[in-house]
């Protein structure tokens, strides 16, 4: 009976989908471990010039990671207000390595090859040390990056010092920028003063990373 076999196919497909989703969920729940104090996961991703960039390249330097997606309204908030560029400029002038990471998978919002990423940097007047291309999302998943923006601060000895939102007001509105406390610049200042950042862990806000 044809209609029975159709039902069976649907059942099998349904079970397979459920199993796949469950497996995915389990993967996530175990790959969610970059709390402050832990060692940052090692990574090697190419920059816009195609050169592999690794965590090990920056031994002895403070690193900031910024997950980004130029199509996301929350990212646009911080670039249109020049908030992000200012923070990048101040940090890099101070000898901090700023890595902007694009984890959008090919075909999804914010995905960029080297040329497009360079053009974005130029158009926006951004000042990262490198833009890393992570189209397979491996680096994003290793860090547990959830949103764009999602910010991490890594100490000179390779430990996570801050993980979370860029600032204290969860919105996509430019007018909220001046009223918000910028957690990233505050964390950098704390590190410089030899203190542990407080807060060191906040809930990031923004669009989901397009894995």
């Amino acid at each position, binding site marked *: *009976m*044809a*209609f*029975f076999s159709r039902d069976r196919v649907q059942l099998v497909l349904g079970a397979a*989908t*459920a*199993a796949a*989703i*469950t497996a*995915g*969920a*389990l*993967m*996530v*729940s175990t790959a*969610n*471990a*970059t*709390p402050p104090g832990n060692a940052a996961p090692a990574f090697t991703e190419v920059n816009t010039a195609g050169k592999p960039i690794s965590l090990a390249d920056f031994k002895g330097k403070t690193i900031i990671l910024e997950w980004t997606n130029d*199509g*996301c*309204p*929350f990212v646009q908030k911080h670039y249109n207000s020049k908030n992000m560029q200012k923070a990048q400029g101040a940090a890099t002038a101070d000898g901090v390595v700023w890595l902007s990471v694009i984890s959008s998978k090919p075909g*999804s*919002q914010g995905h960029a090859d080297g040329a497009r990423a360079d053009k974005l940097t130029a158009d926006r007047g951004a000042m990262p040390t490198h833009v890393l291309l992570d189209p397979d999302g491996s680096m994003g*998943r290793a860090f*547990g990056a*959830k*949103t764009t923006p999602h910010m991490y601060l890594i100490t000179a000895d390779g430990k996570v010092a801050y*993980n979370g939102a860029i600032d204290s007001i*969860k*919105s*996509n*509105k430019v007018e909220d920028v001046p009223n918000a406390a910028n957690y990233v610049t505050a964390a950098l200042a704390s590190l410089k003063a030899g203190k542990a950042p407080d807060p060191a*862990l906040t*809930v*990031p*806000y*923004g*669009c*989901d*990373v*397009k*894995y």
Partner: protein
Amino acid sequence: MRALLSLASRCLAAMVAASALAGAATAQVSAKSDHAEGTLVFERSAATPGDIFLGALKLDLAEGWHVYWKNPGDSGLPPTATWTPSPGVTFGDFRFPAPHAIPLATLMNYGYEHQVVLPFQIQIAAEAEPGTDVPIGGKIEYLICSDICIPEDIDLATTLRIAAAPETDNAGSTLIVGTLPRIPVALTGKATVERTATGFRLAVADPGLASAIGAAKNIRFFPEGPELSNPARQIVKTGPEGVSIDLTASDFAKAGDQNLNGIVVLTDADGAAHGWEIAATPGPAPAGVADTEFINADTSGLAPPPPVAETPPMGFADLMLTLGFAFVGGLVLNLMPCVLPVLTIKAAGLVHTAHDPKVSRAHGIAYLSGVVLCFAAIGAILIALRAAGDQAGLGFQLQYPPVTALFALIMFAVGLNLLGVFEIGGSLMGVGGRLADKGGTSGAFFTGLLAAFVGAPCVGPFMAPAVGVAISQPPIVVMAVFIVIGIGLAAPFVLLSFTPAFAKILPKPGKWMMTFRQALAFPMFLTVLWLLWVLSGQTGADGVIAVLAGAIALAFGIWLAERIGRNMLGKLVAGVVILAAFVVPATATTWSKAEAQVTANAWSPEKVAELQAEGRVIFVDFTARWCVTCQFNKGAIHDASVAKTFSDLDVAFLEADWTNKDKVIAEELAKHGAAGVPLYLVYPAKGGEPKKLDQLLTPGMIETAVRQAAGSL
């Protein structure tokens, strides 16, 4: 009966409300953004000074887009309203209904797809002037996402009339009341949380929640804060007292014991979600919440319920195959215990006519028409019921106790007739059994009807697959399947009727036929027994006793008819007795079925004070038997959803019966400015003065009032 009463009361309420509203404009207002349309609706079309009522923001979302719950999960933002200040109007926060879990790649969001209704409270200042209009509006902002996110906003502005008496906005209140069951309710029981190696074990013991577990297909905890890994699978166990859920901690969980806030949501097969607010404190889990593992219907707990897919229409080959099965099914139905007795009548008829081929053929055709007509009617009713959203299956006709009762009596009468207790003269009431027994063509037709009617419930188990497939098909296919089942059922007898050779096998009519006919009475009585068994499951002993009493009355009526049925008066008396024998049990079984959904305790001022001291919400019904409005309102009060709300919120239901003179009740009525009954009062859980409800109740009005009184709104 009760359903009818409830329907009548609702119609009446709607009519009264509609006439009161004639010319009153609704304050409802809509605006569109690129991916959503927002509408502000209100419970009232006119509010009174000091009034507290509900408004709601309805967001209709473009297909594939979602907005967020108050905790959006791994990304996103909840909708917000920035109300334009309006003197004398105070706006409450949005009440968020239970959300869906919306997985995005490896992340998890909490939100709403298709549509969300966010109720909020509106308070009108006591100084507001009746006759004026107050502006209500503001900017609604929401982040709306598919695989990308777009912040959108709309401006909504309207005015609401202030009047001396409140007026209900029917469309608005219907929408708001409809969404209230989705709003999480306060937990009456206990919630604890313990640390585990990977996170937390949340344990919730609550009578309301425990009673909903049976119907739940999915159980999930939605945290208010960031301390959980949102996409991680939740391991759910249940017990007679509640649920326990193993949760995976995120980086945000502090070390050691901590509180855990959020909602536990139970989703039933229809996708209806009920939430309980959880504020779990550290401590050992209560007993009876982790006896058995609960398997979420959507295994991962990740995916939202998929939209119901339309069954693709059948191909021609599939259709033919299904019809083939339907025919065979109908054929086999002849051997089923529920049809066999009816067929014995037909068999008797066949013996009569077998030696006259012409009559035999005519009877065969008539029988076929009867069977097919009955199956077609059952098919049509089934299609109509399903179109109305009822989950009707085959045999639904016997789900109504009065039908079962009537049927049992008809079968009993047929049995008596076969035994020869009475012969059909043409003066008795025309009932199916009599007609079925009648030798003529119409008799054959009614035998067919009867066979199909009793046969249909047997179709279910035997042909469930074919019927199950057919039922989801377009109506024309459903009809075809049913008609073919009918043809299958009728086929053997039609065939015999058309086979002259068959007559040769049968002995010539003679005295043996009388014996044969009498013997057939006993399968009839067995059918009565079966129907009584069905009835006992529906109505308990009361229904069975009613039918047995009816059977005695029927036998008495028949005896009377034989004795005194020669003149007009005799016929009348016997007719009345026989009619009563059918009508009374049928009505009685309706009564015994409709037991009260909520039970009331007797009202007294002391009882009210006592219950108020316990902090319970109290609903008082001032009623009297002679008060027609009160009886209409009983329909609303005894509505199943009201009963559920009462039990969920532990509402005390008191009844003050003013049928007889009662000074205390009269004083209480006067105290609340009521000239008489009905009067409905709802006392808030926090104590204080009761709220007076309208004199014409709807279930929604009662639910809104008690939810407000419970503080869960």
